[in-house]
């Protein structure tokens, strides 16, 4: 039975999560701006065909909509999604010297946020026994594919974070 979401999550945890989401959204926007300014890769809509061939997955947050929030499932999907994006960003390594530092910051902030979620799940006794393991990642075989992959991963990440932010804000305010 889904736990009553509001009561079981400490307010400080929710406020930290909101702060971390805002930071990662900022990092993601910085990556998108640089990809657009330097490589004129500004619109994910121009890379739909490439996305099919690269096979860049989406991270589901289906347990999180406020009308049917299932806390354990939602936190677990939140953590798995962050874990997926860590892997995708890792696969983009060597994207370009100009973008290296921005990518590093994004990865570190996502890893921090994933740790915050995982520890809260452990504190609530909801955490699975084993940490998730990374599935197969798309193979970016050229500099262009890494940049285009960067645009696609960043846009997926922003949409994922937007959903997460709404859920967390709903929990923080209820």
């Amino acid at each position: 039975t889904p736990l009553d979401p509001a009561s079981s999550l400490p307010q400080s945890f929710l406020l930290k999560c909101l702060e971390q989401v805002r930071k990662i959204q900022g990092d993601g926007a910085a990556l998108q701006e640089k990809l657009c300014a330097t490589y004129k890769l500004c619109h994910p809509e121009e890379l739909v065909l490439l996305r099919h061939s690269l096979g860049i997955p989406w991270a589901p947050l289906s347990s999180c909509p406020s009308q049917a929030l299932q806390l354990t499932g939602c936190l677990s999907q939140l953590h798995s999604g962050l874990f997926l994006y860590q892997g995708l960003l890792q696969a983009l390594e060597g994207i370009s010297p100009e973008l290296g530092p921005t990518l590093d910051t994004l990865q570190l902030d996502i890893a921090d946020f994933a740790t915050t979620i995982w520890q809260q799940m452990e504190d609530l006794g909801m955490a699975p026994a084993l940490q998730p393991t990374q599935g197969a990642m798309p193979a970016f075989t050229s500099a262009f594919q890494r940049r285009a992959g960067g645009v696609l991963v960043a846009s997926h990440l922003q949409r994922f974070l937007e959903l997460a932010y709404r859920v967390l804000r709903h929990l923080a305010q209820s």
Partner: protein
Amino acid sequence: ECGHVSVSAPIVHLGDPITASCIIKQNCSHLDLEPQILWRLGAELQPGGRQQRLSDGTQQSTITLPHLNHTRAFLSCCLNWGNSLQILDQVELRAGYPPAIPRNLSCLMNLTTSSLICQWEPGPETHLPTSFTLKSFKSRGNCQTQGDSILDCVPEDGQSHCSIPRRHLLLYQNMGIWVQAENALGTSMSPQLCLQPMDVVKLEPPMLRTMDPSPEAAPPQAGCLQLCWEPWQPALHINQKCELRHKPQSGEASWALVGPLPLEALRYELCGLLPATAYTLQIRCIRWPLPGHWSNWSPSLELRTTER
């Protein structure tokens, strides 16, 4: 080797005694059956050497310096040869103090360099080569249980601060931090801090600005000022509350406080002031509702209220 000096301990507490002995082998002393061994500390001859002839013909002299008051000195074993003093061997002596407990350890998270910068007071001079190391570990609880340890942070020579780079930090998790000082005479450790880097963020204040006169906006009423402020960019993602302080430029009035105020204001009207008076204004912010430190007060903005 003709002569050889050995000491009880080359490094002692300042003022402590030190005992040395010098062996002169027989094959060296063929010059003189009973060579008189002399001791020299720095440039001064030291009386009190007790000399004896060992069974194998070796000459041995032992000396005890009751109080070594030099932080660094060289003790030489010498020999009178003809009418000149001959130095046969020499040992470096050092004296000082064990490191005091480093005090006032404090840390700030610098958002511009994304590093945790800790500083401390090293305590009195030890006169000995003393190494300081900032040690830390990640911790789930309140630092009672030690998680993964973080790479030691070694400050640059003689510095009393060290900077832990972002990649070694978990910004939202507790970490235990302390300073260890070590030299030949001992080791000391500061009390341990337990903090989350994000809770010790060093915020910069917003930038106060006057309002650009614009046709649409109504001019400020008498006794009011119009201003705005822009948040400090690197901390945009951090919820903060701010407070404004103001006082007339002339006279001895103390600061008046206004708050809590939002992190950003595109247009703010401050009223209840004396008309036709020049005011000094400053603003500062603090992370809120999550824990944090107040930023410094911003640079002053000077504004004048209109006539009645």
